[in-house]
């Protein structure tokens, strides 16, 4: 057990911190889940990229800087500590890219990754359908071999596609063999939203932002080059992506430790104004801080396991359950501290916490609901019978 960082790691942290201090916008930006906010956030992604911070853990040739997992964690810690903007490019950089590294061809990586890092292409996920949420293998959108060869024709509907109304590309599963067993006949496609036959309709989220989209595919032609992994092999490829989403790469501890520090600051400012704080709320503040710290410590172990070649596998569900539920409790506690102020939408501090709370509530739903995660933990980690 060695919890010290190397001089090179510390130097990397210092560099990231200095850059963020100099570059993070002072004023909060409109949400990246709105059209104008998205455009603004794209300029931020481009600045990150120009400074080499868009995808630190990627190889240099694709726009990264070959940082280690530990350095990536450090960067994330600094990023959220600095209060830097929301990462609208996250679904590409943290979810699709790991899949491309594992299953993509060199041609795909060379063509797609540099543009992804530079936010020339911003990616959205297209898994869910009106009839297929938790039961993802029940998707009905189809892809059939184009008679002329060289590609597929896609039709059907995807939904709940985050920032889909503003993104450039989507990735997701389509059924290529309707006769095969549910998990077998699926293929993983990447589709530009500018392709003829694609219609995108923005849908409001809980907070009112147009953060969701429905995407309709009407005989959309997609070349073979935009299939990841083998035809009909999409399920296995997709599971690799959901593993990253539940596990490390989507929600690093830095996000929660930073939120916990902001909660502590909120407690201090309220307490400092002489407002009495209920002891149960004080206890909840401590609990939220403790849980964020627990997740940070747990992740040190996870990173070590991954580095030793022990993949996360189904254990990533443990991770997802923990961070999503701690995030809800943390934000609930902030609202309790704010008391009657919590509802004030024209009070920037209160509204910020309320928006954070609304987003935290989605955590136990997206990336596979926590009910599904508990099934996975019970069956694949504890070995309980499926049926």
């Amino acid at each position, binding site marked *: 057990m060695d919890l010290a*960082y190397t001089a090179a790691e510390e130097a990397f942290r210092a560099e990231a911190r200095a850059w963020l201090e100099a570059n993070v916008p002072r004023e909060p930006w409109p949400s990246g889940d709105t059209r104008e906010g998205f455009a603004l956030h794209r300029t931020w992604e481009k600045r990150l990229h120009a400074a080499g911070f868009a995808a630190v853990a990627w190889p240099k040739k694709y726009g990264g800087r070959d940082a280690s997992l530990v350095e990536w964690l450090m960067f994330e810690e600094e990023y959220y500590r600095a209060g830097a903007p929301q990462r609208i490019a996250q679904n590409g950089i943290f979810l699709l890219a790991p899949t491309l590294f594992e299953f993509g061809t060199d041609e795909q990586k060379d063509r797609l990754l540099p543009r992804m890092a530079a936010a020339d292409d911003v990616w959205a996920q297209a898994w869910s359908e009106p009839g297929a949420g938790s039961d993802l293998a029940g998707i009905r959108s189809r892809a059939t071999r184009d008679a002329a060869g060289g590609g597929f024709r896609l039709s059907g509907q995807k939904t709940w596609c985050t920032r889909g109304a503003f993104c450039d590309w989507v990735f997701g599963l389509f059924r290529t063999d309707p006769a095969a067993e549910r998990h077998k006949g699926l293929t993983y496609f990447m589709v530009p939203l500018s392709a003829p036959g694609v219609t995108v309709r923005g849908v409001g989220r809980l907070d009112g932002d147009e953060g969701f989209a429905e995407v309709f595919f009407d005989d959309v032609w997609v070349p073979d080059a935009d299939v990841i992994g083998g035809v009909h092999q999409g399920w296995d490829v997709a599971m690799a992506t959901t593993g990253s989403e539940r596990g490390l790469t989507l929600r690093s501890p830095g996000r929660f430790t930073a939120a916990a520090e902001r909660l502590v600051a909120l407690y201090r400012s309220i307490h400092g104004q002489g407002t009495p704080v209920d002891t149960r709320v004080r*206890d909840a503040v*401590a609990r939220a801080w403790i849980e964020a710290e*627990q997740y940070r410590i747990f992740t*040190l172990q996870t990173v070590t396991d991954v580095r030793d070649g022990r993949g996360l596998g189904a254990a990533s569900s443990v991770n997802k359950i923990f961070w999503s539920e701690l995030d809800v409790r943390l934000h609930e506690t902030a609202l309790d501290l704010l008391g009657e102020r919590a509802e004030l939408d024209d009070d920037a501090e209160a509204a910020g916490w309320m928006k954070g709370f609304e987003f935290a509530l989605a955590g136990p739903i997206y990336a596979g609901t926590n009910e599904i995660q508990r099934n996975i*933990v*019970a069956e694949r*980690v504890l070995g309980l019978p499926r049926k």
Partner: protein
Amino acid sequence: MRFALSDEQRLLAKSVADVLRKHATPADVRAAWSSDVGSAERWAQLADLGVPAMLVPEQHGGLGLSELDMVVVLEQVGRFALPEPVLETAMIVAPLLAASSTPEAAAPLARIVAGEITAAVLFDDARVAANLHGASVVVLARATEGVQWFEPAAGATKARRSVDGARRLGELCAPPTWAPMVTGDRAAELTARARDRAALGAAAELVGLGRAMLDMAVDYAKVREQFGKPIGSFQAVKHHLASAHVALELARPAVLYAAQRTSERAADASRACSLAKAVASDAATGAARASLQCHGAIGYSFEHDLHLWMKRTWALARAHGDAATQRARVAALILDHNEGRS
């Protein structure tokens, strides 16, 4: 950065588990319910492994190991619900005596290292503690007044009963004349460090206890059938056990982390110990609840072993600071004293 036990530590856990599997069977734990004294034979086996000497520096004849090594052992102690005062003797008192650097400590320390005696500790104004009635050396550790140890005279202590019949509690009825061997800042420091080790050690035992209770429930859920199938196939049962697993999975690294920080005398060590005790107490009591619920009435019966583990958990979850008390300590450090994250 490397967050993993070393090969030696894994081996240590395995050798302790091998001994306990043979000599601390559930039947042995149950037998301890009807005995007023610990098993000399079992203590000798632990001494053979070097357990009482682990945290004693080599110049005092000990093994000079770290709190992290000790925590690895205590996790196994919890897993087997071992009814012996490893926490009190090896984790709390032995290193306290060694760190006191007083001539009076030499004799009791040598006997502890040799495996001849066990110890107990009373913090501040406490009067009841585990292993107090029967310990050959009792430490009174008072942050503001000093630290004193003594060999209790006959009649100075009396037995008290715990809900966990294997946990031998005692009360100090006739305290000795107050004549501390250590006073002032040094006493405050020795007491604070001993309290942190107590919380940390109890947390490690709780993680072991919790994991054992979860394992029992998982094994049972695979074989017990109702409605024509194993109860483990029912989602309500799955979710109870999955939640218990998540809590334990996140508590264990917190305990290892606190042990590492303590071994390194790091600035955040004390806070980390409180954090570890808070989360381990909650995780273990949660595992106890889930395990009992998934066992149904069989788990509620005195014949079943679950209660042996469960009652130890109830006791240890509150001993050395319950979850709320430990969270309050963390709260004081982060909210009032501005001890932010490094």
